[in-house]
């Protein structure tokens, strides 16, 4: 049942230290007869950050979408903001904004060719005289709004040139534009999921500063260290209900995982993946060998990957790790260098030659380079081998069902559309797609971004098991501790070159972090 250390009851997060800025009670959301959120309650006071955790599909997003006015709650829900009761049946996005509820999403919806100043003006209105835009006031307004949020950005920069960290900072400035911190509630909806650890810290430091000025904040995240470091309280949703709540400092990985899965025996609790062992790897004759790779910001990278080895690639977002992975998998052309598998060169020129040799790649961009959104799970699973499965629908069906079972894909319905799945389940489908192909080398670019901890552990133990059976894995992650835990070896890239090679194992987390952010 409920995992609470204090006498708080189910459906009630621990009492806030002060009068709540925002309080919602009895929030249920039902779609077409299916209840996705059941009688949830949430409270947040000024000057505190509430961490909101839960597995993919646990109801976090639904609760956030209720608070931001995107989804309607079932009758009976109550919402008060700043002590004023808000009518729930007429609560929409603009109403939410006007009562002071602001949100930062994971991916800032920016228009590539617009400048920072224009992007801000789209939100707050263009300063005009007559009906013409006043360029100078446009810039000064933008500067003022950026400064108010503590964000340093040139208002003339074009949105498409911003780094992930800059985009997040801009979104924060937009969300906080012209709000009174003493009356507003900021919701971070997995705002740090696609940021590197360093960018995430910079971002959350700014949020913390605003909160110390009186802002109330709710933070949806999968990253437990962030919760422990930045949040005052935390609550965990499981299957649409509040499963645990309490002071953030009391949550550790174990307790969190148990709260996320504990209520439902159907949900498989996964043992945290076994840490890497480097002892029995055959280092002689690296199976995959990259020499002198260059191009796309990579300046001469060499590495080898033994059979059954898991190699981590770390470094900051702009360090070249993603580019290196794409080059190894043949996705992007290379200006120079060789990739060899078993001593035979793998030609560059699209994913096909690499795929033929058994090198499979998983992109961090699950929708445009992962699965076809309007095709089913089954269709996506067999897509790379669709020729091989022709006229073998029974085998295809059996294989699809086996993979759905193995990776615990939800819903376990082969005919569900890929685009309707949660991020974690999409990732499971993509990984099972390649495992079904029985590849030699699996190249994974940030496979656990936006994936809940339970799913992450499931994936990690699957990677470990596959590696033990001979699969070689290259994996990039922005989280040094995850790399340290999973990988036999980690190379850290900076400015397109390898600056450090570190043996895996949790005790080396510090080393990897230092090499990454030095």
């Amino acid at each position, binding site marked *: 049942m409920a995992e609470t250390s204090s006498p708080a009851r189910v459906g009630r997060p621990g009492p806030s230290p002060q009068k709540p800025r925002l309080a919602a009670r009895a929030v249920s959301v039902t779609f077409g007869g299916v209840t996705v959120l059941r009688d949830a309650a949430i409270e947040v006071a000024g000057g505190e950050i509430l961490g909101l955790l839960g597995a993919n599909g646990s109801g976090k997003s639904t609760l956030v979408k209720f608070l931001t006015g995107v989804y309607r709650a079932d009758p009976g829900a109550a919402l008060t903001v700043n002590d004023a009761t808000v009518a729930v049946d007429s609560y929409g996005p603009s109403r939410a904004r006007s009562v002071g509820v602001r949100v930062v999403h994971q991916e800032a919806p920016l228009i590539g060719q617009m400048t920072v100043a224009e992007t801000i003006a789209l939100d707050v209105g263009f300063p005009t005289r007559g009906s013409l835009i006043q360029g100078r006031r446009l810039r000064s307004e933008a500067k003022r709004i950026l400064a108010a949020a503590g964000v340093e950005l040139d208002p003339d920069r074009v949105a498409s040139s911003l780094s992930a960290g800059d985009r997040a900072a801009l979104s924060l400035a937009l969300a906080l534009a012209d709000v009174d911190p003493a009356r507003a509630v900021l919701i971070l909806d997995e705002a740090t999921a696609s940021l590197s650890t360093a960018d995430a810290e910079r971002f959350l430091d700014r949020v913390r500063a605003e909160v110390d000025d009186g802002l109330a904040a709710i933070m949806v995240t999968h990253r437990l260290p962030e919760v422990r470091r930045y949040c005052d309280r935390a609550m965990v949703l499981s*299957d649409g209900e509040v499963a645990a709540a309490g002071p953030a400092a009391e949550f550790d990985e174990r307790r969190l995982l148990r709260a996320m899965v504990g209520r439902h025996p159907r949900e498989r609790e996964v043992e945290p993946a076994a840490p890497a062992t480097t002892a029995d790897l055959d280092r002689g004759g690296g199976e995959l060998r990259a020499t002198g790779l260059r191009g796309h910001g990579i300046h001469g990278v060499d590495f080898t990957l033994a059979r059954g080895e898991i190699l981590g690639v770390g470094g900051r977002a702009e360090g070249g790790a993603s580019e290196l992975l794409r080059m190894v998998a043949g996705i992007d052309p290379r200006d120079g260098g060789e990739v060899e598998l078993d001593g035979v060169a793998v030609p560059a020129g699209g*994913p096909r030659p690499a795929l033929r040799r058994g090198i499979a*790649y998983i992109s961090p961009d699950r929708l*445009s380079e992962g699965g076809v959104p*309007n*095709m089913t799970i089954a269709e996506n699973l067999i*897509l790379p081998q669709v020729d091989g499965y022709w006229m073998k629908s029974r085998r295809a069906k059996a294989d699809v069902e086996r993979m759905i079972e193995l990776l615990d894909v939800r*819903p376990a319905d082969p005919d569900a559309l890929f685009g309707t799945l949660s991020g974690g389940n999409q990732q499971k489908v993509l990984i099972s797609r390649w495992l079904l192909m029985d590849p030699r080398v699996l190249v994974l670019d940030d496979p656990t971004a936006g994936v809940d901890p339970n799913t992450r552990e499931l994936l990690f133990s699957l990677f470990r098991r596959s590696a033990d059976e001979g699969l070689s894995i290259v994996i990039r992650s922005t989280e040094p501790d995850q790399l340290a835990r999973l990988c036999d070896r980690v190379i850290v890239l900076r400015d397109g070159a390898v600056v450090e090679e570190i043996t895996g194992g949790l005790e080396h987390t510090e080393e990897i972090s230092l090499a990454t952010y030095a």
Partner: protein
Amino acid sequence: MPATESGGETSRNPGRFLLDLSVRHSLLILIAILFAVFSIAEPNTFPTVNNLRGIALNQSVSALLALAVLIVVVTGEFDLSVGYVLGFAAVLAADLSMSSKVGLAGVVALVLTLLAGAAIGLISGTLTARFRINSLIATLGVGLAVSGLSVGVSGGQTLSGGMPHTFVDLARTKILGLESVVWIVLAVAVALYLVLVKTPLGRKMYATGGSEGVARMVGIRTRLLKAGAFAAAGAIAALAGVLQLGLSGAANPTYGSNLLLTAFAAVFLGSTTVRPGYFNVWGTVLAVVLLAIGFSGLSLMGVAFWVEPVFDGVALIIGVLLSRSETRAVLANK
């Protein structure tokens, strides 16, 4: 995840199930309704063998053109040139075979014309897939150029007379009481259906249309596939042109361009039914039939000829509106 609880299936009410079923077969139901209404309104002229055969004959070329449009749309591109290719093919086949002109044997002229259609499609496909020109722009350019060629080949006149009997035989030979053109269109539709739904090739085409980036990532040769789709569409449009020549006995260089929008309308209207949300063969064919029956009935009731495109356009918009899930939800709750 609560959405996966077994309750999801059972809590589905029977009304919603019926609604889903009716959406899947919406065009078929509409066709039946229109048929009944017109049969009652015009009992002496509408539900007659002659009228229905006339509809089938008149619409076979439109249906074929819609199938040409469909092939390319499935891969996520648009081919605006197929209407002009249709006109060009009619003129070219006539020109190649007329005794007063090149004077080739009918079959040879037919094969050359189909190859020319495929070649034009291949040009559009190469411009789109290889040189990454937006397909609307590329095929607009190709279409314009082809319309000029049609005038060049024909000298701007309708070509007739002095042609071998091949084209008329191809289109008008009676098989089981129906002209061969109808059977040809049905054969193309069945073949296309099998390719799109039952073969890996079709799966790859839908994947390419659904997300080209994903298709590329799983090793599908998307560029080759798209170029191939354009070439096939060009050949089918050319076949439609030759059949038109056989039906009318004359080649009008401007014929075809006015069929283009209706063909697109049929493809989009068709995507609302049979397999809602996906461009599909039988939806497209049903849409052509619906538009034809609607117009035939209206004209028998005495409406002016300009009503046809108005009817087609309004039918497309209403059809697409009704197929939207929001609209369905609103209807289900009322």
